[in-house]
C-alpha cells in the first residue's frame, strides 16, 4: 500500500512536540476538478476528494477518502497477521528456549551474600513503567485481537465494558508510563551507551546459550542495552503516535491519524514481543535475575557471572557489599 502522504505525516508527528496548531488544509477553491466522479477519483489517484463546507469542522470538507479502505486493509491484513504471528512466534521461541536451555542457573551457586543492584528510585521507575506497560499492552492487544478472541467467550456487553475500561486505562496509564520511561532513561542512559565490551558479549551470545560462559558486562550487558533502547525508542514512538490518537485531528488530518494508528499498532506489538522476552529472562528464565528488580539486591555470584565489570566498579567505589 501507499503510505499516504508521508511527508505531511512526518511533519505532523514532529509537530506534536512543539504543539503547533495544524493549519487547516486549503480548501479546493483554486483546484480545477473534473465534475464527474469517476474522472475525479482517477485524477486524484486514490487521494481524498476535498471541497468546501460551511461548518467549521475541517474534516467534513473531505467528501470521499478512498485511503480509508487501504488503512482498513493494512490494519486487518498485514498488521494484525504480523502482530499475531510475532506474538505467537515469541511465545513459542521462549518456550522452546526454556525447554532446551532450561532455567539458567547461577553457575557457581548462590554466594549467599548480596549486592545492591537497583536502588529504590530505579526500581520505582522500572515497576511504574512495567505495571503501566502490562495494562497498556493487554488493553492494546484486546483492542486488536479481543473481538476475535475474547468477545466470543464473554459476550458483547461484557466485552464492551471490558474494552471501555481498557480504553480508559490505556489513555490514562499512558502518562505514568511515559514518566517511568523518562525516569529510566535519565537514570540509566549513561550505562546503556554501547561500547567495545558489548561486541564480545554479543559474540559469545551473552553466555545464554551455553553453560559456564560468562562474557564480561557492566551494569547492563549488550542484551539489556538493546532492550533499553527498544524501550526508549519504542515508548517514544508509542507516545507520539498514541497522543496523536488520543487528541484526534489536533495536529494532523485523517491520513495522519491513519498512519499514527498503524505505527502505534506495529510499535505496540513489537514492544509486547520484546517485553515478553524481557519478562522471561528476568523471571523464570534465569535464576537470581528477578531479585534485581525485586528486592534490588542480587546474589554476589550472580552478579559476578553476569555483570563482572559492574561488580568490580562497585567494589572499587567501596560500596555494594552487605
Amino acid at each position, binding site marked *: 500500500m501507499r503510505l499516504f502522504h508521508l511527508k505531511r505525516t512526518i511533519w505532523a508527528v514532529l509537530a506534536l512536540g512543539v504543539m503547533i496548531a495544524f493549519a*487547516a488544509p*486549503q*480548501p479546493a*477553491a483554486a483546484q480545477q476538478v473534473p465534475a464527474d466522479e469517476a474522472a475525479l477519483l482517477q485524477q486524484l489517484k486514490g487521494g481524498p476528494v476535498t471541497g468546501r463546507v*460551511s*461548518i467549521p469542522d475541517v474534516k467534513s470538507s473531505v467528501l470521499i477518502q478512498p485511503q480509508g479502505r487501504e488503512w482498513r486493509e493494512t490494519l486487518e491484513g498485514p498488521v494484525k497477521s504480523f502482530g499475531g504471528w510475532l506474538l505467537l512466534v515469541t511465545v513459542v521461541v521462549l518456550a522452546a528456549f526454556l525447554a532446551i536451555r532450561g532455567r539458567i542457573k547461577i553457575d557457581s551457586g548462590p554466594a549467599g551474600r548480596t549486592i545492591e543492584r537497583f536502588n529504590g528510585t530505579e526500581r520505582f521507575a522500572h515497576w511504574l513503567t512495567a505495571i503501566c506497560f502490562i495494562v497498556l499492552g493487554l488493553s492494546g492487544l484486546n483492542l486488536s485481537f479481543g473481538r476475535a478472541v475474547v468477545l466470543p467467550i464473554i459476550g458483547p456487553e461484557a466485552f464492551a465494558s471490558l474494552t471501555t475500561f481498557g480504553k480508559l486505562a490505556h489513555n490514562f496509564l499512558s502518562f505514568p508510563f511515559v514518566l517511568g520511561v523518562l525516569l529510566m532513561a535519565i537514570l540509566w542512559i549513561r550505562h546503556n551507551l554501547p561500547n567495545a565490551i558489548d561486541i564480545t558479549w554479543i559474540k559469545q551470545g551473552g553466555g545464554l546459550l551455553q553453560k559456564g560462559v560468562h562474557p564480561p558486562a557492566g551494569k547492563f550487558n549488550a542484551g539489556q542495552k538493546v532492550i533499553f533502547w527498544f524501550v526508549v525508542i519504542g515508548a517514544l514512538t508509542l507516545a507520539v503516535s498514541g497522543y496523536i490518537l488520543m487528541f484526534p485531528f489536533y495536529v494532523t488530518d485523517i491520513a495522519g491519524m491513519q498512519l499514527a494508528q498503524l505505527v502505534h499498532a506495529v510499535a505496540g506489538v513489537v514492544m509486547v514481543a520484546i517485553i515478553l522476552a524481557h519478562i522471561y529472562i528476568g523471571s523464570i528464565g534465569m535464576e537470581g535475575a528477578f531479585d534485581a528488580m525485586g528486592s534490588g539486591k542480587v546474589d554476589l555470584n550472580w552478579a559476578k557471572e553476569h555483570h563482572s565489570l559492574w561488580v568490580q566498579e562497585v567494589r572499587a567505589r567501596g560500596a555494594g557489599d552487605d
Partner: protein
Amino acid sequence: MLIKKSSSASAAPVKGKLSGILAGATLQTMDRRGFLKASGLAAGGLAAVSALTPAMVKPAKAAPSAGSNIVKRKNICTHCSVGCTVTAEVENGVWVGQEPSWDSPINLGTHCAKGASIRELTHGDRRLKYPMKLVDGKWTRITWDQAIDEIGNKLLEIREKSGPESVYWLGSAKFSNEGGYLFRKFAAFWGTNNIDHQARICHSTTVAGVANTWGYGAMTNSYNDIHNSKCIVIMGGNPAEAHPVSLQHVLRGKEKNKAPLIVIDPRFTRTAAHATEYVRIRPGTDIPVIWGLLWHIFENGWEDKEYIRQRVYGMDDVRKEVAKWTPDEVERVTGVPGEQMRRVAETMAKNRPGTLIWCMGVTQHTVGTANVRALSILQLALGNIGVEGGGANIFRGHCNVQGCTDLGLDVTTLPAYYGLTEGAWKHWCRVWDVDYNWMQSRFESKKMMETKGIPSTRWFDAVLVDKKDLEQKDNVKAMFFWGHGGNTVPRMPEMKTGMEKVELLVVVDPHPTTAAALPDRKNGTYLLPACTQLETRGSRTASNRSLQWGEQIVKPIFESKPDHWILYQFAKKLGFEKEMFKNIKIDEGEEPNVEDILREINLGTVSIGYSGQSPERLKAHMAHQADFDVVTLRATKGPLKGEFYGLPWPCWGTPEMKHPGTHVLYNTNLPVKEGGGAFRARFGVEKDGVSLLAEGSYPVGSEIQDGHPEFTYGLLKKMGWDKELTEAERATIEKIGGNNPDAVSWAIDLSCGIIRVCMEHGVQAMGNAKARANAFGLPDPIPVHREPIYTVRRDLVAKYPAMADRRDYRLPHLGKSIQDKDLSKDFPMILTSGRLVEYEGGGEETRSNKWLAELQQNMFVEINPDDAARLGIKEGQDVWVYGPENNAKAKVKALVTPRVAKGVAFMPFHFSGFWQGVDQRKNYPPGTDPIVLGESVNGVTTYGYDPVTHMHENKATICRIEAA
C-alpha cells in the same frame, strides 16, 4: 451479530406519533419489514421523485390508533415566497414532528434548510418571551397592558405635539394577508401614509417597473410554469440559495425540455453552478447587458414582430436607445465579450417560450426601476409575456411580501394599488363603512392624506434632516419596527443615530432584532413579542400570486401574540377600534376574527382580484392540494376541478362567481372566465395620437375582438350590457356613483357586477391594452444606463451620469452630486451583497435557530484569490471592510473564492450583533440573543436610491479591504 434488544412494543414513547404507531394493533404483530412491504412505501416517497405528480403514489400513512392524540396541521413556510406547505405533527399542543407535504403542488414534499428546520421556531428558546422595556439601560419585563398603555400615551403625546405623520409604521412582509391589511388600515386610521414594509427593499422597483409596463406588479407566471420553459434566464438572482425549492422546478424545466439555463450575475452563485451558460457582469451594468442582448435580437430580426405590433407600445423608441449598445461598448462597460452576448441572445431568441427570472441583483439599484423596465422590454420583444413557459418570473423575497404589497403596506397606496387619491380613499371608506370626512380628520390635512409617505429606506433621514427640508409638519419622533429587521437597509451608522434620536422605539417581533441591540438608548424602547404565522391562522400570498391558508399549528408561545390581536389593543388604546373593527367580529380573548378580515379584503380589493378568495375557498384548496396538477396548477379532479391552486390573483369578482384564479397573467389563450386575460388598460387610450390599446389581440372568446379601455358603468351601458346586471348590483353601482353613476369604474364597483357581466362576454373589465415599452411618466421612460453613484469606473461617469439631485417622497434625493466625487483611490473595490440559504432577511430569526446557525457561524466577505494574494489575505482570516461614508467599517472573516471576480467583494446581509468590531451580545435582553452574531453589511453600504421607489442601492457600492 446484534439484533433488537427487545421486540416488544415499549412504554413511554418520546414522540407521540411514534406511540400512535406502536399502539396500533395491526402493527404489534407485524415486524417492520413486513410493515414496509405492506405499506408499499418503498415506492411512496420516491414516486414523487420520478413522476411529476406527487399525488400518484402516496407514502404510507400509518393510521394513528385510538389512543393517539397526534394531529396533523398544515401551514405555509414563513421564510421565502415560494410558499412551501409545512405539515406539522402536533401532540398536546407541542409541535413534535414534521413530515413532507407531498400533496402541495408547489413544494411536492420538499423544503430547503430553513423549511426543514422551521419546527424550531415554535420551540424558540431565543424568542422574545414577554413585553419588555428599557429602563435606564436595563431590560425590564412588563405586562402587555402596561406596554400598550405606555406606548399609547406616548403616541398620543407625539400626535398632539408633532402630528400623526411623526409616527412611522414599518410593517412586515411576514404578516399574513389579514395582519398586513389590518396594519395598513391601522395606519390610515391613525392618519399617516408613513407606512411601509420590506417590499420597499426587495421588489419595489419590480412592482413599479412591471406595473408601469403591463399593469400589475407581480410575477406573471409561476414556479411550476417553468416546467414549460424552453429557455430559462436568471439575472441578478440566486434562487438556489434564496428560493431553493424553486430550483426543483427550474431544474425540471431544464432537464425536461433540455432548456438552456443562463445565469447572468456578477457572482458565480450556487445557481450559476447549474447553468449551461454563465455570464459574469460588472455590478450595476444590467441595462447595458440587456440592451446588448436586444442589440443582437434587433440586428438579426429575432424579435416577435407580430406580438410587438399587437401588444407593445413604443418599441421603436427602445430601438433607438439599443442601437447605442454595440457589442464593443457593451464589453467596455459590462465586461461581457460580444461573442457571448450574441450566443445568449440567439439562445433566448431561438428557444421560446423562455422565462426570465430576476431578483434583487436587478432591483436594488439606483436604476432599479429602469433595470426592471429593460428586462420587461426584453421579454416583450421576444413575445414571452402572457404565454405558458414564458413570463417575467420575479421571485419575491419574504413569505408574504407579495400579499403585503398587494394589500398596500406601502407609502404610495391604499390596499390593492388604488393609490392615495380622493377616489381611492372614498373607495376604501365605503369598504370600511366609515365616513370619508371622519377619515380625513384623522390626518393632518387632505393634502397629507394624498401625499406619499417616507420610504422605509429613508425613515431615519426623516428623523435626522432639518425640519425645513422635510415636507411634513415635524420630524419622525416614534418608530415602529413591526416585523422588520434593523440591518437590511444601507447607511446603518446614520440609522443608528436615527434610532437613538427618536423618542419612542417600538419593536414588535418574535425576536428583539437589531433595533433593540444596536442603538445606544437608555429609555423609551419597547419590545413586544409577536408570534409567528405558525402560531396563528390566515392566508399568505406566494410569489406566484397563489393564496394559501395556514392553520394555527400551536398556540402562540410564551406571552407572544398575533399581529391582529396587538393591533386591536392599540386601536382600542388610541380610540378608533369601533370604527376600525366595525365589520370584523372580535372573538374570545379580544382577537379579531381572521376570516372576517379576509372577507373585508375580498370586498375591497376588486381592482386586483383578491375578491374571489374567500376563507372557505382557500381552506378547500388546502384540503384538496393533491387534486392540482404540478405543471398547470389546475385541479384535474375533485370538487375544485378547473380552479388554479390558491386562486392566484386576479380571481375576478365575488367568491360566488367562482373565477378559477389566474395562473399566467395576460394570457390571451384562455377565456377571461377561465383565467385568461390581456394587458391592463391603465394609462389611457392614446398617447400623442398613438393608440395604447391592443390591436387585434384579445383573450379567447372575447366578444370585443380588439383592444378596449377599462370598463365603467357608462361603457357597460354603451355596450348595452348593463341590463344583465342584477338589481342589487345596479343598486350598489348607483349608490357608489351618486350623481354620476356612469363614471363608476369596474375597480370601485363593490358588487363586482361590471366584472361579472364583462366576463360573461369574454371581456376583461380592466381593458385590453398594449404593454408599454415606452413608459412615459417615469423619470427614464426608456431605460438608460447610469453608472452607480459610487463607481470605480470613473472613465464612464461623464458618458453615463447619475440622475441629477432632486426631491421626492418628502425628502431630498441626491445622485449626481455624490457621483461627482472620485473616491475610487481609497475605495478601489466594488462591494455587492446577497443571501445565504441558511438565513433570511435580517437573520434574527434564522440565526436564533440552532439547526441553521450551526451551518453559518461567521459573517464573511468573499474575495477573489487574486485580490487576496495582492492584499496578503488568507482564507478564514479577519479583515476590515471599509465603506466610503461615515468612517464605516466592519470586521469579518475572509472567504477566498473565485465566486467573485477580481476587484469585486461580496458580503451576505443577514448578520448583525457586531458593530465595527465590537460584540453587542450583551445589548440583547438576556436569553434572546441570536446564536450567531456578525457585522452587518449595511454597516458599510452607502447612499443611493432609485428615483421611482427609493429602493436602496445595495448591489454596487465601493469598499476597501485590509487584513485585520
